[in-house]
Each structure stands twice: as C-alpha cells, then as structure tokens.
C-alpha cells in the first residue's frame, strides 16, 4: 500500500503554474502541457527535482506554465542549456520543450549533437510545420509547396526536415511520434521517454489552428502506428522514411547506448597540487 500512496502523491495540477498560456484557442500545445504534467504526476517526481528548459517560440513558453524549475532561454539554444544543467546536476529530471523552428532550424546543430552526445534528457518537440510566434512563416518541417506565407508566397521549394530519421542517424536513444489529439497516450509515452536513459526524442504533431487551419484535420488523419518498438535504428529509420508522417502513438525505437555522463569525481586532488606544478 506504501507504493500506492507514493504514486498518488501528486496530481497533474500540482505541476501547473497559475499562469494563463498565451496560446490561441485550439492550439495543440495545451494538451502537450497537460500530458507533461500528467506524466510527471505518474512518475511522482517532486516538482523541485524537475526542470523544463526551452528556447523561443509558442511551445517554448511551457516552462512558465509549469510549477517545476524552468529556464526560458534564447532561440534555438534550449538543448545546450539543458545539457549543461543535466551534466552539472545529474540527479535532476530535465525536459526540453520547443517547436520545429527552434529545434531543427536555428537550433539544428545542437539537435544533431544532443542526439550524438546522448545526455539523459527528454526532448519534446511540438511540430506544427510553421513559425507561429512571428505569424506564419515556413519552418524546416513545412512542405515545399505550402504557399501560406508572405515570406515564401510560392512555397519554399525545399524538402522538409525529417527530425526522427535525422535523430536516429545522429544517435538519439529513444524515438517516438505522438499526436496532441491523444493526451492520454502522449502522457504514457512521455513517461517512457523520461524513464529511458539517454537522449529521448518525442515528436508531437501539434496543430497550429491559426496559421495552418488545415491542420485541424490532423486529429482525423492520424492513425496509431502498427509497428512495434525496435532496437534496430536502421529498421526504425526505414519505416519512418517510408511512412506519411501520420503514424503516431508509439515508441518507434529504443536504444541501449549508455548516456553521456562525465563524473564530478573528486580524485582527492587539491588546488595546491595544481599550483605546485608551476613552482620552480
């Protein structure tokens, strides 16, 4: 009964702040916030032992909407902030939240190296294929023929970025795709992502109903992936490269690479010993 009491220790609302989100009505990010708080409650993590780090964008506003420790930095740099925090304080549970522009365009290099480095972080990317905060420009995941932006009125003409495939190729240790239309399943997968050691990447199809109103249909288009999780990155990548991007609700890859975790080991050296090397 003790363990039962433990799991009931926190409710999702215990992880929410009283701030009202700036998001538009119907934004997918609301349910992502719900799923994150639900997952934290499920894991019964004391709020002060969790940190949520973000960059800039609509979805990067999440830290302030939680009651855990938060860090809202500059555009594209959430992953290095989270890396520094987790390496300095390994006992904390560190989540990173952000959007497709923040993570895959301006922060693209950090994304590659965060996957490579495999620090024990959970990266939740709310992918809506648009820059919402700046009012509707093409993002790295936007289809090449999308003509909805004044900046690229004839479409970008360039292929969308494949975050999960690139993540697998770069060494991410856990890869999943979920839909914001199913917060219960999303929470379940975020729990798994947090529990899995190393760098966990969760792509959330999270519609922008304001600048991509057609994305409201995503809730009807998405389908539960019929594949089971694999530990073979090549197999997972092949599946992802051949699907239409709407197979959701499953963990697609779980690796077993040990996380990068340099130890703060005091080897009983002293500053005096360092200084002695300079003495003549």
């Amino acid at each position, binding site marked *: 009964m003790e363990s039962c009491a433990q799991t009931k220790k926190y409710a999702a609302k215990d992880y929410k702040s009283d701030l009202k989100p700036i998001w538009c009505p119907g934004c997918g990010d609301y349910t992502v916030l719900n799923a994150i708080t639900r997952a934290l409650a499920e894991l019964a993590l004391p*709020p002060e032992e969790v940190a949520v780090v973000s960059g800039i964008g609509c979805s990067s506003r999440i830290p302030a909407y939680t009651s855990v420790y938060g860090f809202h*930095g500059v555009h594209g740099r959430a992953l290095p902030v989270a*890396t*520094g925090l987790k390496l300095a304080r390994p006992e904390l549970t560190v989540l990173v939240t952000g959007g497709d522009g923040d993570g895959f365009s301006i922060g693209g290099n950090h994304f590659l190296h965060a996957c490579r480095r495999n620090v024990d972080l959970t990266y939740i990317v709310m992918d809506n294929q648009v820059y919402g905060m700046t009012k509707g420009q093409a993002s790295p995941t936007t289809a090449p023929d999308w003509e909805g932006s004044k900046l690229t009125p004839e479409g970008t003409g360039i292929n969308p970025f494949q975050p999960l495939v690139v993540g697998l190729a770069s060494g991410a240790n856990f890869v999943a795709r979920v839909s914001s239309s199913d917060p219960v399943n999303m929470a379940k997968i975020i729990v798994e992502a947090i529990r899995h050691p190393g760098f966990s990447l969760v792509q959330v199809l999270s519609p922008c109903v304001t600048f991509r109103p057609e994305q409201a249909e995503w809730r009807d288009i998405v389908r539960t992936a019929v594949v089971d999780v694999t530990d073979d990155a090549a197999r997972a990548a092949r599946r992802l490269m051949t699907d239409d991007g709407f197979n959701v609700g499953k963990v697609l890859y779980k690796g077993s690479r040990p996380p990068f975790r340099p130890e703060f080991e005091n080897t009983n050296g002293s500053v005096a010993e360092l200084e002695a090397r300079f003495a*003549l």
Partner: protein
Amino acid sequence: MTVQSVSLVIAGSGGAGVVTAGSLLLEAAAKAGWYALMSRSSGPQIRGGEAAAMLRFATEPIMSHDDSFHLLMAIDWENIGRFSAEIPLVEASLIVGDPTHGPAPVALLSGKPREAALAMTDIAGRIENGRPNMVALGAIAAMIGLPAEAMQAVVEQHLKRKGQAAIDASMAAFHAGIAAAADLPAIPKLPAVGATSGPRWSITGNEATGLGVIRGGVRFVAAYPITPATEVLEWLAPSLAKVGGVLVQAEDELASINQIIGASYGGVPAMTATSGPGLSLMIESLGLAVAAEVPLVVVDVMRVGPSTGIATKSEQSDLNIAVYGLHGDAPHIVVAANSVADCLFTTQWAVHLAEAMQTPTLVLTDQAMGQARAIVPRPAELAFIGQRLVATAAPAAIEGERYKRYAVTASGVSPMAIPGTAGLTHTADGLEHNEFGTPSSQASDHQAQMDKRSRKLTQFNYGDHWADIEDAEVGAGDTAIITWGSSTGPAREALRRFSDAGGKARLISVRLIAPVQPEKMAAALKGITRAVVVEQSHSGQFYRMLRAFYDLPKDTRSLHQAGPLAFGPNRILEQLNAWSS
C-alpha cells in the same frame, strides 16, 4: 633601477622545434635563478613553418619585452623575413646564422645589426645524433652567461625517457656550441644569481587563467577550441578533473556559452574561454545571462580582428564588443588582466564578481600574454571565492506568498534558488519579467528590473582592484600613463626608465573596464595635468571609451597602434620625455 636584461630571438622553420629550444632555455634560466619572459610568434602553418621564440632574461622580475633584441639566433632563414617587424634589431644587435643556409635576408638588416656565423649544422654533424638547435643553445648560453649546469639539469629532465645516450648527444652538441661561441662577438651577459629573493613560478598566461578560475570556484567548463584560447581549456580539462570539476567539449560556441548558463543555473560556477570570433557568437546568450541573472565567466584571449583576422597574433581590439556588443541595455562586467601573472588574479576576481552579482563577467586577456611563458615571483594567495547569494528556505510560512527570483532589493542582488530546493521553483527568463520571473511587457517592470540589474553593479565595492596605480614617488608628478591589458608591461617599464632618469609620472592600468569608475579615476588623476593613453588597437578604442566616461586632463594624447606589433617601452618613454623637455 633600470632592468639589467638580455633579449634574444631564436627563429627558424623548425616550427615547434624553435619554441622547444626557447622553452629549454627558459627552464635553464629558471634554474640559474633568473626571471624570464618568452613569447612566440608563428606563421599560419599547422605544423612546422617559420616560428620565433622571443625571450628576455633578467635578474629581477620583468613585465615586458625590450625595444629591440640583442641577439637573433637563426637556425635557418626560411620565411624569417616575415618576422622582421616583430624582431626590432639595431646597430648593437647581433644576427647569428648558419652559413649552410646562406646570408641573412635583407629584410632583417634595416637596423644595421652586426652579423656573425655559427656553423650549427656542421658542428652538429660531427656529433652522433647531434642537433643544430642544441649547438645554438650552447652558443646562446655562453654569450648571455647562463651556466652549463643549469642546461644539463634541464636536458636530463627532458630526455630522461630517451636514455643516457640521447642526453649525452644533446649535451655534447650544447658544449660544442659553448666552445664555438668564443669566436662570436659579445652581447650583454647577465650576472649569475645566487639565492633568489623568493619562490618563483614558471607559468603561461593561459595556464594562469585556468588556475584563476579554479581558485575562484569554477567546477564546470564548456569548451570549443579556438586559437589562442585553446590552451586555457586544454589545461583545465585534466586539472578540473583533479578537483572534482568537469569539462565538456561543445559543438560550437553557441553551445558552450549555453551549456555554462545551464550549469550555473544548476548552481555550479561555470566558465568558458574563447577568442574574438567565438565571443561574437556568444554575445546573444551573454545578454540572456544578464537578463536571467546567471553568473558566469567568459575569457576572451584576444587576437587580431576583424573576422578571422590573424589568429596567431595579438591585439587589444575586442574592447568595444566586450563593453558594447550586447543588444539592449545589458549591464555586465568586463575586466582585463594586465600581465601573465595577473591572468591568475583577474580571472579569480572575475569568478568572485560574477557570483556575487549574478551576472556574466568577461575577462579580456590576449595572445601576447596568454601564450607567453614567464618566470615570475610566486603569485599571492587570494581570498576571492565565488559566493552566490542563495535562497535556501521558502517563504512558505506565509500562505500565498511566492518566491520572487528577481526580487527588487536595495543591493540589486536577489537570493537565487537552485533547482532541487523545495518551495522555490520558478522560471528564469530572458524575456523581461516581474519579480517572480513571470514574463511582462509592462514599462514599470522593465524599469524596475533594469534599475536592479544596473544597481547591483554600480553599488558593488570593487575596492582598489579596479586599477593598478603605480607612482615612481607616491603622489608626485603631473604626468600619467593610462593603459590596460598587455600594454601595461611596456608602460611599466617606460615609467621605470623615466623615473630612473629623474622624471616623475604615474601609471594607471585599468583592470575594471566596465562598469566605469569615474570617482576612482578622478582620485587617481589628482594633480595630473597631462596623460598619454596607450593601447594596441587601430581605432583607439580605449581612448574613446575614456573620453566618453571620464574627466581626463586637457592634454591627453592617444598612443595607439594596431596589432600584432607591441609597444616597446621607449615608444611610451618618448612621449613622457617630449613633455618634460
């Protein structure tokens, strides 16, 4: 008393070999009880290529190179002309070259130095495994009065692993060099020193920088390699591990600055080191550390800019970006080291300032001091340890009272909660915010937070460390040299020469570049009616900054020049003499 010293250059296309020869000489000088300064200059090649080790030896501490060199020992002449401007030679100077490599290039002869030959290759060839470098070192030792036993000890230490045969071969070549020096013209000899006046260290500016941050309490470093700052990071990697710290190599400078922001937010004092191009990349995130009030230290080992510039050579031209580079009003701290040894003091102080004021602190050093090795009196123990005002207890007792991360306080410093502390969760934010950290676009919040961020810097007690103020005779004279960073070395020596000749002047070397200290400067300039501002930048950045923020004497002149050429003491002395005549 004017420094008794001897200055020489070892140059050649041997790349690292030349620098190694210089290092051996420096170590032997240390054993002989001398003080020394060694800088290096090299071409752009990754390996090999032309290189020069510039050395100055003295029987007492020295801060600067001299105006010219007594000796240029050239192992060969390849591309050596490229250094001609960096190796001032005068009529009293001596060039020694190996006849095997032909005559000295004309570029080196404009000062009409004496010339002599030393058949290093031939002499070395007569010794099994003999090397021309060791012959050169033998000749140099004999010419400057360095005892052979000192070199013997150094060679034994270095070649211990290679065995006795290698030691014997090196020392045979060294002694052959000593014998050959009998035929060479004389240059000044230094007297042998018995017991030195106190303990000495052999250290580079970049090592001193690393040691300074460790002493200050830094235990997390993120690193991205860049010339000429890499040695700071390479020294820190194993050294941090010994004292329970961690160094992580980042994917770029954007990552390294943000990693240290994350680590410091997590409560671990953190730093990184870079040079101009890397600092440029870090600027946006330095503003984040200002807004979110995250303490950290960034060391900029300056090199010639703009852009890639001259990566291997020195300039004091990042002053403007360090002070003004951040967008918005972004109060932060900029300090500058003014000698090899002062890299230790200034970086340790920087950690203290950053932690105490919860703000980013930039430390400016440069290639000339960073990559220079000096034999210096042992630096003093310093009391500066980073002390952060940490919030440990929740205001929980009061129902509904929430923790204010950015509480407006009299000092401007707000108690900082470290993740893991119950009851004090909050979001640190680069968005303008209210006292709780909640994003706010209200004018009143912006005003209050700007006031506090500014106040914590202006109200802090920086003590006497804001500048080194040196008088030949305390309070005497109406003339001042105002300078900063590595221009302080030649300025110090100019002042010494000036007072040896009966002149009276004051040196003000500014260590705290920002925030500015107008009251302290006014006190330091009491009685001064004329001043010369000395700096190594093409546009006179420091002079312009002084003009903007300080009341300077009416007769204030700017003595500035672009890198990589450093001022010789006499360039500065000329201005002092012009005034007094």
